[in-house]
């Protein structure tokens, strides 16, 4: 049996530091919002002309007044991603860009993807994203409250907060783009982390009924160990699936799968080291759950 409970304090401090750093990053550095949430235009180009590079593309686009333009390679040497905010609200801007590119490089470009999000829509999308995450946290809180006691609910929700905040903090640190699919990833992380926590909690509750003489400090450790191999196997298979999306699923799914990979790792960690330690700190005992049974 691994003595997870030996490190409860140390990892709690680590988690607090991680959350603090993440919050500081989110406040001072902020998130790198994509056009979904910031508004603007995105164009994915494919060239079949070897002499094109990021610099020549940028120079050509510089001739048009687009404001702040970002030009990046996208996955390989042929594909490029152009982003700008289109603050001047020019109409037919895409046609203009296409003409300009054709003039400078000959007809060597394919517009593979064009996305254009107005400021009104982007702020709506951001708002509904924030609402979705808030609702999901609230729903999880209520669900666990119904299924378990409030101490469990608090533990699970703190673990969820940790996962969401640290994942977003990491995205801020690495300057990765936040778009609609990242919101989907965060919601799935919420589901996954909850799933992981619930399995251990289920065992904690079962053991609480079984052993009246074991303190919660050791009881959580027993429960973690009993469910450990399941925790690991599920994490591994989920990570295998996610890694194959990350490496083979194409550029568009990269951010999504990366967020999920972080989330699965944090989720697995937090269900052991946050959710359970909350139970320990709240001194959950056999009484906690029996009282509730009597009520019914």
């Amino acid at each position: 049996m691994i003595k997870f409970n030996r490190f409860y304090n140390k990892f709690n401090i680590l988690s607090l530091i991680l959350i603090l750093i993440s919050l500081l990053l989110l406040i001072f550095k902020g998130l790198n919002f994509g056009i979904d949430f910031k508004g603007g235009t995105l164009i994915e180009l494919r060239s079949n002309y070897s002499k094109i590079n990021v610099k020549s593309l940028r120079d050509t686009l510089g001739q048009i007044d687009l404001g702040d333009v970002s030009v990046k390679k996208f996955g390989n040497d042929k594909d490029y991603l152009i982003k700008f905010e289109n603050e001047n609200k020019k109409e037919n801007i895409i046609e203009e860009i296409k003409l300009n590119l054709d003039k400078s490089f000959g007809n060597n470009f394919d517009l593979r993807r064009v996305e254009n999000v107005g400021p009104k829509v982007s702020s709506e999308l951001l708002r509904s994203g924030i609402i979705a995450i808030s609702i999901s946290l609230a729903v999880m809180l209520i669900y666990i409250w119904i299924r378990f006691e409030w101490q469990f609910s608090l533990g699970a929700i703190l673990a969820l907060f940790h996962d969401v905040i640290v994942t977003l903090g990491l995205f801020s640190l690495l300057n990765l783009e936040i778009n609609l699919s990242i919101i989907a990833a965060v919601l799935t992380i919420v589901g996954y982390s909850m799933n992981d926590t619930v399995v251990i909690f289920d065992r904690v509750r079962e053991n609480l009924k079984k052993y009246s003489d074991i303190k919660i400090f050791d009881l959580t450790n027993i429960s973690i160990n009993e469910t450990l191999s399941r925790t690991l196997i599920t994490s591994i298979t989920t990570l295998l699936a996610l890694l194959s999306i990350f490496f083979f699923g194409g550029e568009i799914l990269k951010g999504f799968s990366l967020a999920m990979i972080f989330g699965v790792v944090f989720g697995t960690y937090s269900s052991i080291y946050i959710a359970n330690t909350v139970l320990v700190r709240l001194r959950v005992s056999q009484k906690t759950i029996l009282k509730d049974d009597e009520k019914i």
Partner: protein
Amino acid sequence: MLYFSKSRIILVSLLTCFFIFIASNNILDPSKRFFNKKINLGLDLQGGSYLLLEIDNTPVIDQKLQNTTTLLRTYFKDNNIRIKNLILNDQKINFEVSEEFIEIAIDILNDENSDINPYYPKFKSHEFDIINNGNFLELSFSRQGLVELKTSSQDQALEIVRRRIDEIGTNEPNILKRGNDRVLVELPGLDDPMRIKSLLGKTANLSFRFVSNDNQDSFGVEKLKYENDIDEDFVSKRIILSGDNLLDAQPRMNNQTNETVVSFTLDRVGAKRFGKATSSGIGKQLAIVLDGKIISAPVIRDTIASGNGQISGGFTFQSATDLALLLRSGALPAPLNIIEERTVGPDLGQDSINAGMFALIIGFSLVIIFMFFKYKIFGLITNITLIVNLILLIGILTLFEATLTLPGIAGIILTVGMAVDANVLIFERIKEETKIEKNNIIAFDSGYTKSKTAILDANITTLLAAIILFFMGSGPVKGFSVTLGVGIFTTLFSVYFIARLFTSIYVSRNKNKEGLI
């Protein structure tokens, strides 16, 4: 309960076969089958354009208020109610009523059968709110009045957008209302939305009016620019003929001038009016105005009584075709702005499908290999379950003709990764049970029973996340929540019916073998 009744085995097998059959529709040609549905590919996979249009209702509101102002003036005049200082300002109509008529005026406006201020019984509200302050009355749109106006302009806009898109002839466009002032247009297979965008961006308000040479008269005349944005002319505000009177419009080649023109046919009322105007106005210039700009202003040489005419204005064949199309399909009630656009080219869509499928195959293989090494014979059972699970998932998506998007494929891959969870929970529990219980059948039975709550809780939490995502997410992300959510049900089915069936067969044949799992 490891026992399975024969009927249940047959039922499960039939159901599985049925879904294999349905799922195969997506690979084989289903056109000859009695059930020929397929999974829809989202715009991000098959390529196409997604356009969200917002109706700018300001002109409609202004127009309606303008009409109401005129209506008020004539109505009160006809009924000998003296009003003064009737003005329309900042979307509010203000006027003053003489002392003795104020009660009557308010009664008229608050009457449920009022012609000026219609009453909507279903909302229990009038079109306009009335505020009275002494002898002063102020009319402004009520909340419901505004909703009613927006809804009706949305209905009209939807109809016109549909007609325009149908005229262009793209395949299976999807045109839907969003909120009460937006129209969503999905155009599968369209990789260059430029033309449609420019066609939807035009209101196409056509009018024929006389050019006025009397520059002094500023009341009934307005100064309008030509299409080239340089030349201007004074044009009478009186509309002789509008686009509503058009029956048909077609691009034509004028043989005499060798110019592309748009020829039109008027309805009876229009032809009559046009005939009258052209006979009385010989020698005058008739301006053809589209969306506030003069296309051309030819001099009338002859009376045109046939109801047929031509519009010239330096068109190319393309622009003549587009103008004819716009005139045929009618004018929008208000301008439309494109507030969101997402276009994916067909080759990127195909690349995404290929990448998604490749990732699915790799992810699936990795999970299968891992499970086999971890659980051997039970890993094999899990893997069979996983394959059935995948077929069921694809089958259900096919049955409901769900839309598969790229994030949707990610959801399927993720389902594969997470689907083993339930089986793992059961097997790990059984492992624990076999340590205290020597009888394999009892150990397996209690393994299934005791793991049930954890499995249920774990799946419900994921399902809740998927449901929230379904209602809050948009477009491709919605596709993810669908596959993730459906995946949970197929997982539970395959674990409790398929995997348990195989497990029970294997265990009952090896009742007393030690270290079974």
